[in-house]
């Protein structure tokens, strides 16, 4: 693991540039006792940067859940009706890779605020797929 | 799936091939039964044994189950062309020479009569023989194991004297003990499990016929010769 200091402005600057170059909308990194979220409201020239960087547990803040790998995003298991199979409450959706469904979690003490992509959208590694907020 | 539903309206015919004293029919998608259509005798069974040996060596065979003048072949995969498979079986049947399995001689100590001989009286009534005669006729016989089946290690024995043939019961005994010496129609055998049993019990044998932990779990094998020794007669 790297020894990045996630509250170092230089590091944030570097990451933002990398995201812009990659055409990615945002990133969330949690590492040791730090967390960093960068969200680019519009990719491209007029990029508006929203940075939340703090020690863990920044109360009241929304956060993003990013795709842990490439796959087809489904907010719920597409193969099962909602009446069958209760998903764990903190699951924000699934990445479908072939027959495999990778559950994506809101994170500790977080709950889903909104999905950021439509069902069946192909997402890439690191793409923001949901916005979560602290549990009430 | 629409295709399979539309077939419902067509006449349903079984794929069955009957040729040169043998008949092949499928059981499900991966099993095929070949039956000798001739007499129920040792000659037919010897040819089934020969056929079993040949088919066992086929690379697509998962399992062979010789029965009474028949053989069930279970394949590893469902064949796309069942007719070719049926023809291959019939060809093997035609080529099957009669073989006699060189089995072991198994002697089984039996208590004839006694508490387990629940059907001896009925057999006497039916045959018109005394219990002594029934017992003597049974232990003087020499039997061949035709096949194993039904329960672990159970041997179907051929060679019963027609005088003591006894049809299976219409109402089975609910809890016949393992070890009961039984007669079912023209066959005899020793019960290997305690439980419901439609055969007629005339005695009891202590011999354990099956040990799952042994390299050869079943005591009997097709081709074995069996003799029953009257260790005691309780009439």
């Amino acid at each position, binding site marked *: 693991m790297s020894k990045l200091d996630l509250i170092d402005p230089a590091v944030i600057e570097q990451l933002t540039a990398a995201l812009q170059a990659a055409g990615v909308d945002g990133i969330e990194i949690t590492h040791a006792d730090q967390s960093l979220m960068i969200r680019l409201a519009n990719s491209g020239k007029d990029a508006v940067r929203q940075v939340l960087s703090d020690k863990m547990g920044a109360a009241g803040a929304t956060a993003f859940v990013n795709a842990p*790998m490439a796959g087809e995003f489904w907010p719920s298991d597409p193969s099962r009706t909602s009446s069958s199979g209760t998903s*764990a409450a903190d699951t924000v959706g699934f990445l479908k890779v072939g*027959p495999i469904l990778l559950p994506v979690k809101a994170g500790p003490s977080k709950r889903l605020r909104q999905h950021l992509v439509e069902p069946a959208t192909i997402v890439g590694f690191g793409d923001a797929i949901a916005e979560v907020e602290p549990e009430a | 799936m629409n295709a399979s539903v539309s077939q419902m309206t067509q006449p349903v015919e079984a794929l069955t091939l009957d040729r040169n004293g043998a008949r092949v029919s499928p059981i499900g998608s991966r099993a095929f039964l070949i039956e000798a259509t001739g007499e129920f005798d040792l000659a037919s069974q010897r040819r089934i044994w020969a056929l079993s040996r040949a088919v066992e060596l086929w690379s697509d065979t998962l399992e062979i*189950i010789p029965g009474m003048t028949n053989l069930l072949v279970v394949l590893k995969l469902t064949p796309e*062309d069942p007719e070719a498979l049926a023809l291959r079986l019939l060809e093997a049947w035609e080529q099957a020479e009669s073989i006699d399995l060189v089995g072991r001689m198994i002697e089984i100590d039996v208590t004839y009569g006694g508490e387990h001989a629940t059907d001896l009286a009925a057999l006497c009534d039916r045959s018109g023989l005394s219990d002594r005669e029934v017992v003597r006729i049974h232990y003087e016989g020499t039997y061949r194991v035709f096949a194993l089946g039904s329960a672990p290690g159970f041997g179907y024995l051929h060679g019963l004297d027609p005088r003591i043939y006894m049809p299976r019961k219409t109402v089975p005994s609910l809890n016949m003990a393992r070890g009961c010496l039984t007669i079912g129609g023209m066959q005899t055998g020793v019960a290997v499990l305690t439980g419901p049993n439609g055969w007629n019990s005339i005695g009891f044998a202590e011999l354990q016929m099956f040990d799952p932990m042994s390299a050869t*779990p079943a005591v009997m094998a097709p081709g074995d010769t069996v003799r029953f020794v009257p260790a005691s007669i309780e009439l």
Partner: protein
Amino acid sequence: MMEIIQTGPFNTVQDLGRPGFRNIGVTSSGAMDPLALKVGNSLLGNEIGAAALEIQTYPFKLRFSKAAAFVVTGADCGALIDGRPVHPWCALSVEAGQILELGQPRIGTRAYICIAGGIDVATVMGSRSTSLRGAFGGREGRYLITGDALQLGEVSSPLNLPNAGLSVVDPAYALADVYPAHDDGALVVRAIPAGEHALFGADAERFWSQTWKISTQSDRTGYRLMGEPIRPTTPVEMRSHGVVSGVVQVPPSGEPIIQMADANTAGGYPKIAGVIEADLWRLGQARIGSRLRFVRATHAQAAEAEKAVTVFVEDVRRTSRMVCGALQAMS
């Protein structure tokens, strides 16, 4: 290791069975829903036929005595880990002391608890399956009881399961094109006419056209069907022959019996049909009291369905390994 805390009767250790011993009278046994067992094992990186627990009476509860990975496949019975819901068919890692609980199934009837490394009971005649009739295999040849402690096998090439777990689409959804849809609520089972089919004359048509009900006298040995009786035109006296699961026999009562995983090894009732291999798992999940209908299939259709199922299981195996590998590389 894990310990059974609560169980009903009839729950056993099963793998893919013990083929090869019917010729000495030994039932094949094995999972009633072999597809659920194969998918569960594939998801965990196990050998495809590793032994699992087949649960058919509920509630069922067990405690993991050491860290493990598990998945519940087959019937959807609202699995809980320490009281929290687990997504159906989702493999998870657990810590020592965690409790897995299964309730009454909402869909299907038999659930499979597969464990990374498999259930390590002694192999008897090539299999860990419980042979209830023979009273050997599995856990001392009997049903599981409260207090049973089961050893887990070693994992030869473990998967590094993600913390959120790893799930798989319902095979019924993935294979929807391969299987006939339910017909007016009745399970549609494909079968091939068997040796005595022609002897049933006009009754044979009624075998295919009517909807049968699975009677309460149904278990791992066989399903007795209820409906309008069918009979051969003349009585037949059969010589005993080998049978396999899926065979549909017609006893004198005229109501068919489908032999299942614990099928007798030999039989003499006239047989009207045999269920194709690829459809047996669906029967294994059919409930007592539910209805089914038979449709005729050809061997070519059966082979095609069998192939599709094999490809699906292989896809699960390959993709789960790939996903776990990719996540690990990116972490």
